[in-house]
Structures are given as C-alpha cells and as structure tokens.
C-alpha cells in the first residue's frame, strides 16, 4: 500500500514524465546488459530527446528479424538495432522498414550507401588464439598445419555464416576443396559463438572463430595480453551490424532522431569497449590503446545481394565437405 502511494505521488509530482513519448528499440540481449552499450546510450539519448527510450530484447541478431516477422504489424518496436549485414536482403523483402534519412559520412572499410539499413558497428572476423601458438598466415596454411580450431554452425549463427561467406569470397570455386582440407583441423562446430569461445578458453582448441578485436577485450578489460588474432593474407571477412526504423512506427520523428543519434560520438564512443566492435565513424580521440593488435588486413566483403545469392550453395558446400 505504501508502495502504491509512493508511486502515485511520483506520477502526480512529475506529469511530464508520465506523458513523455516512448521510443521502443528492439535489440539483442547482450546490447542492453549492464556491461553492454545499452545503459550509456539510453542515458545519452534521453538527455537530448525528452523521451523515454525502452529497449526490448529478442535473442541474438538472427532472431531479431524472425521476431519482427512473427509480430508483423503488431510490433511495438520503432527501431531494430543489431541485424547482421548478411540478413539485409531477407529483411528488406519483409517490407517492414523505412528509409532512415541519415546522410552523415561513414568510416567503414567498404562503401555503404544503403538508405534503409544504417551500420552502427563493424568488425573483421578472425581466428583468435593464445599468444605463442604458431600463427598460420592463411586458410591454406591452417589447412596444412596440425592446428585445431572450433567454428560456429552457419545454419544457426551469424559468425558461422560469416566464415562460410568469407571462405567463399576468398576461394570461390575452390572453397569445397579448402573445406575438405580444413576438416581435420576442426575439433567441433557449436550452434553459437559463446559456446565456441567457452570451449576455446577451456583449452579444447588452439583457436576459435571470433573477431579481430577479441584480444582487445582480454587486454583492456582483463589486463591479459595473452591473446592474438591470426592475420590471413587472403583478407578478412566483415561483419557489419545495422539498425533500421520500422515503417509502421508511431514515433517516426523520434525514430529518425534516434537513427541520426547512432552516428553521434555519444553512441559511437561507447561501442569499442562495450560491444568490442569498431565504431562506424572516425573517433576524434582515436581508438583505445591496444584495441587492434593485429596488423590491418585486407577486407573481403560480399555485398548483401551477392551474399544472399551465394549463401545456400556455400553452406551446402561446407556441410558436404565436413560430413565426409
């Protein structure tokens, strides 16, 4: 009863709070965790929008799109944050999204002029190993070595799909042969990134498919310099994470304001040491020390259209080669 009275008092005392418009952002779980970018971004945006920013989570990046399709027109999300670039074609086909209208320049290693899907962070895929492990300089060298790696399944995880497309981009028609040679280097395949990384840390493999910035987490957050990312001469696949506003949002102005806010220093500045990915705009003060320990690689990027066209065949090649 006392609680009710207090709540009532709070509401009556602050009518503005009760009437503030609400912007609902659908994103993945780890984005809003207390150690993720969510809390700082919420505080910074609410300081400028006179609104209430509400995060709704729905599993990982791939699950977000499934959830929006399930909710269809009934969704209360105004913005979705965290789709993988390889899902853009499928996302566009749903017709659920509207142009964002943001024109500020991006600092991505590839050209990006999509009017609907706006990148908010990106990273190179890479194999991550303990320092001191012999480091192969290419997929071919890895396949010829005795090194053991753990991967994620391209049928269930976005980095897993990213790797298959990375190999396809690097080897084209020779991809099946490369996978066949890699088969004896692969300890196992897990459904998601976190299981893979956990097994790697437990010593089950020499390296794990992850991101070029993974060693930065261990160095900056844990003070442990004992991890490296392998730089491959073929170039590295790219993950670009994008946001988009829903066409049926009941807060189009706020949603557009949030899309523009994504490229602001207040948003981009927290990305490197909370999401452990690269910001999509140039940072005035540069990146944190030790953020990128691997020498800058070449970028192998399949445009969303090409990725969508190649995907099923590339995954089939992967499955066939590893099922022998």
């Amino acid at each position, binding site marked *: 009863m006392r609680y009710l009275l207090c709540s009532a008092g709070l509401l009556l005392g602050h009518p503005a709070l009760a009437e503030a418009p609400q912007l609902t952002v659908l994103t993945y779980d780890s984005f809003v965790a207390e*150690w993720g970018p969510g809390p700082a971004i919420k505080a910074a945006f609410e300081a400028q929008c006179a609104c209430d920013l509400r*995060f709704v989570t729905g599993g*990982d990046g791939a*699950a977000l799109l499934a959830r929006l399709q*399930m909710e269809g027109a009934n969704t209360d999300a105004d913005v979705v944050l965290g789709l993988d670039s390889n899902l853009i074609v499928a996302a566009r086909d749903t017709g659920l999204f509207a142009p964002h209208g943001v024109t500020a320049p991006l600092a991505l290693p590839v050209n990006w002029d999509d009017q609907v899907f706006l990148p908010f962070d990106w990273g190179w895929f890479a194999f991550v190993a303990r320092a001191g492990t012999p480091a192969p300089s290419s997929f071919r060298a890895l396949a010829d070595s005795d090194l053991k790696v753990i991967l994620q399944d391209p049928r*269930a995880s976005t980095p897993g799909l990213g790797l298959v497309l990375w190999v396809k981009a690097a080897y084209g028609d020779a991809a099946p042969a490369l996978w066949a040679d890699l088969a004896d280097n692969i300890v196992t395949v897990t459904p998601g990134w976190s*299981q893979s990384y956990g*097994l790697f840390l437990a010593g089950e493999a020499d390296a794990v498919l992850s991101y070029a910035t993974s060693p930065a987490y*261990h160095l900056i957050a844990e003070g442990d310099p004992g991890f490296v990312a392998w730089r491959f001469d073929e170039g590295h696949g790219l993950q670009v994470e994008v946001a988009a506003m829903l066409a049926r949002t009941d807060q189009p102005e706020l949603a557009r304001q949030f899309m523009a806010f994504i490229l602001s220093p207040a948003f981009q500045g927290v990305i490197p040491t909370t999401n452990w990915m690269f910001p999509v705009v140039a940072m005035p003060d540069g990146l944190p020390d030790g953020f990128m320990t691997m020498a800058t690689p070449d970028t192998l990027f399949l445009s969303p259209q090409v990725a969508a066209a190649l995907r099923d065949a590339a995954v089939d090649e992967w499955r066939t080669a590893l*099922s022998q």
Partner: protein
Amino acid sequence: MTAPALRWPGAIAAALVAAMVLGPVLALRPGGGALTAADWAAARFTLSQAALSALACGLLGVPLARALARRQFPGRSTLIRLLGAPFLLPVIVAVHGLLALFGRAGWLNQGLAAAGLPVVPIYGLHGVVIAHVFLNLALVTRILLQGWAAIPVERFRLAATLGASIGPLLERPMLRERLPGALLLVFLICLTSFAVALTLGGGPRATTVELAVYQSLRFDFQPAQAARLALLQLGLCALAALAVWRVTLPAGFGGGLDRSLPTWAAPGRRAADAGIIVAATLFLLAPLALILLHGLAGAGDIPHAALGAAMRSLAVALAATALAVAAALALALRGGALADLAASLPLAASALVLGTGLFALIAPFASPAALALPLTALVNATMALPFAFRLLAPAVAATEAAHGPLATTLGLTGWARLRILTLPRIRPALGLAAGLTAALSMGDLGIITLFAGADAATLPLLMQGLMGAYRTTAASGVGLLLVGLTFGLFWVLDRWGARDAAT
C-alpha cells in the same frame, strides 16, 4: 482398474496437454516443400543416436540400479541423490563439465598424454552417446530403483525361503514394467537433442532434426517448415510411445507391509556391486566436481543482476512444478494408453516450436514480453510433465493394485480416496517428481530467450548473456549459483517425499 479413483481430471489434463503441444505447432501452419536429402540424413542420425543413447543407458542403468537396490551402506541415500545431479544440470554447464574430464584438454587425455599414450578424442557419435548417458543415466537408475523398492520385501523372503531365483521371478517382471518407459524417456529426450549432439558430435555429420527446426525458426524464418519438422518429431514420438505401451506389462506383485529390503536378499557378488557403484559415481560426479571447481573461481565476479535473476528462476520453477505435478497426477490417476500418450507427447515437442507457436498465438492479443515469466512456467511445466508422470504413474498403479479393492469395499472413492489412500502412499514419487520438475525448470534456456526482456532474465539467461560478452569466469560463477539453487530445490523436495523411504 481404477474406476473408483478420480478419472475426469485426467481427461481434462490430457486435453490441455494435447492443446498445449499441438496448438502452437498448428499455429505455425505446417507446410513447405519436400524433405531434402540433408533432412533425411539428419533424421537418420537423430534416430540412431537416440536409440544408441537409450540402449547404453539401459545397459548401464540396470546393473547400477540393481547394485544400489540390494546394497546398504552409509550415505547411500545421499549418493543416490547426488548421482541425479547431471540430469538436473543446465545442458551448457553439463557439457563443460564433461569436457573438463573427457575433452582434448581434459583430465583423462592429460593423464594419457603424461603416460605417453595417444589422446582419445571425445568428438564423434561415441561422444554424443557418452554425453547423453552422462545426462540421463541417473534418470533411468532412479526409475528402476523405485521399481525395486516397489517389490514387497515379503516376495523376496518367500523367494529366499523357497530357494527360488529372484531374477526371473521378481526382477524381470519389474523390469518389463518399468524399463521400456524409462528407455522411451531417454530416447525421446535425445530425439530433440541439438546443442549437445552438434557440439560433441564434432560437426555437421551430427546434425539433428532439431537443428533444422532451429535454423528454420531463428535464422531463415520459415515457420511452416519448422512446424512440418515438428510434426515429424511428434509422429516419431507417438509411434515410440505406443510401441512401449504395447511391450509394457504390469508386474502385479500385490501388496506388502513396507518393510525395507534386508541385504540378505542378495547374497554374493558384493565386489561386483561395489565396482559398479564406484565406477558410476566417478563417471557422474567427477565432471560435477570440475564444474564446482571452475565455478568457485568465478564466484567473486557474479553480477548484482544475479539476485533478481535467481528470484525469477525460483518463482518460475515453483509455478512450473505445481502445474506439472498436478497434471501428471491427474493423468496417472486416469491411467491407460491415452494418459500415456498425452504424457509422452511433450517430450517430442521441440521447446523452440512450442515457444514460437505460443508467441504467434499470443502476439495479436498481448505483449509476449510482458507475459515472459508465466509463459516460461507454462512451457516448462509441459516439458517436465513426462518425467513427473513416469514417476507417479507406477506408484499410483501399485497403490491401486495393492489397496484399491479394499478401499473400494470400504466405499473410499473420489477425493477422499486420493487424500487418504493415494497421496500418502505415493509421497516418495511425488517428492521426486516435484524435485525433478523444479530442477528442470530452473535450468531451462530454450523458451525464456524467445520472450524475455533484459529485465526478466532468469539465471540461465544471465549466464548465457555473460558468456556472450566474453565474461566466462563470471558465467561460471553464475553457473555455480544456478547449480547450487537447482540442486538445493531438488534436494528439499526429494527429501520431503522420501522422509523414511529407501529410495
């Protein structure tokens, strides 16, 4: 057989379970193209690994349960409860514990390497079977142990007096009654295995149907395809459940005076029994010890969010327990093929399909996120129902067989019969069923991810979040907290039931 007992609640429960399992599948509108070669390969692998896992659990579970049934030693009931731990572990935690023992960097291979012997890889079909035996052996053992305890001691005495062999006379009829159901449980659990099969199987060779379900729901969003695969799984389940029902025979030992089994009932073979018990203890508890070891290292890193998450997990588990035990009891009182089938269906239902279908059903009317915890409790109760039923049904049937005719003669029917006769006599099974349901619900991760917002995270979800953000040590700490709470809850409920029983 059970006419004077309550039957109508069982009919209602069966209808509710069928609606709960089939409704969400149909909500996804099954359809789509023909099954591909890859789908058939996945179906073959799914069936063969599930059959092998069930077989291995039977081969190991029977001798283990027999050894435990006929030996008395200090700490026996504690050991029996501890052996159940792997079944109660969240799968993700269990896999890590198992790999700490059998993995490439595990104790076994380090020992072999130190002795100059070649490394034994765990990844492959044998790894999948080992993992499934690790997870499910205790379930089979507990069910059979209850079977041994249900043979009245008077029958053992009679057999001993007559110099008759108790194997064919007492044990085989009991196994005929209990073993098929127990193995069916394991088979069906393994039928929907996904992360364990893929990870221990070492790659896409070990693709199960459930992976295809996951892919079509979460990645490709082709719910019709997922629903079609879910129907395939349900069909396999129904066939297996009916087959088991056909080979199961009631043992019909009659009543006894509830005396405990004296060790003279099983002379000789003391060393063999001890060997079996020690080997099983090592296999089931060494990974657990390694989990505790790793968890303690992360105990200091447990985030504040863990407190709220623990409370939510407990609330969900207790609600799911109340629902599942009530439904299982209603079905057990009814008995028969219908109850058996209804109670087995949820096992073959993919939790993911169930959750997604419910989401699709609810989304037009209410925000599923706002109902995250009640929905999770409901789905968890459905998924745990088969286990609760499998424990309660034999106890109810045995009570009816032994005391039903007298109770009927005395005019003891309906609710009074339930309260005065049935409930007190099935108390050990009731406690075990409640403990099991609560523990399974505590560790569940399948459903909550679909609904929950960040402010409704349960412990497994929090643990997954930490693992997904590099915080592996903190995740181990939360894992330890989860294991501790899960096991504590199980212990309290199981103890309540087994106040002074031998199992």
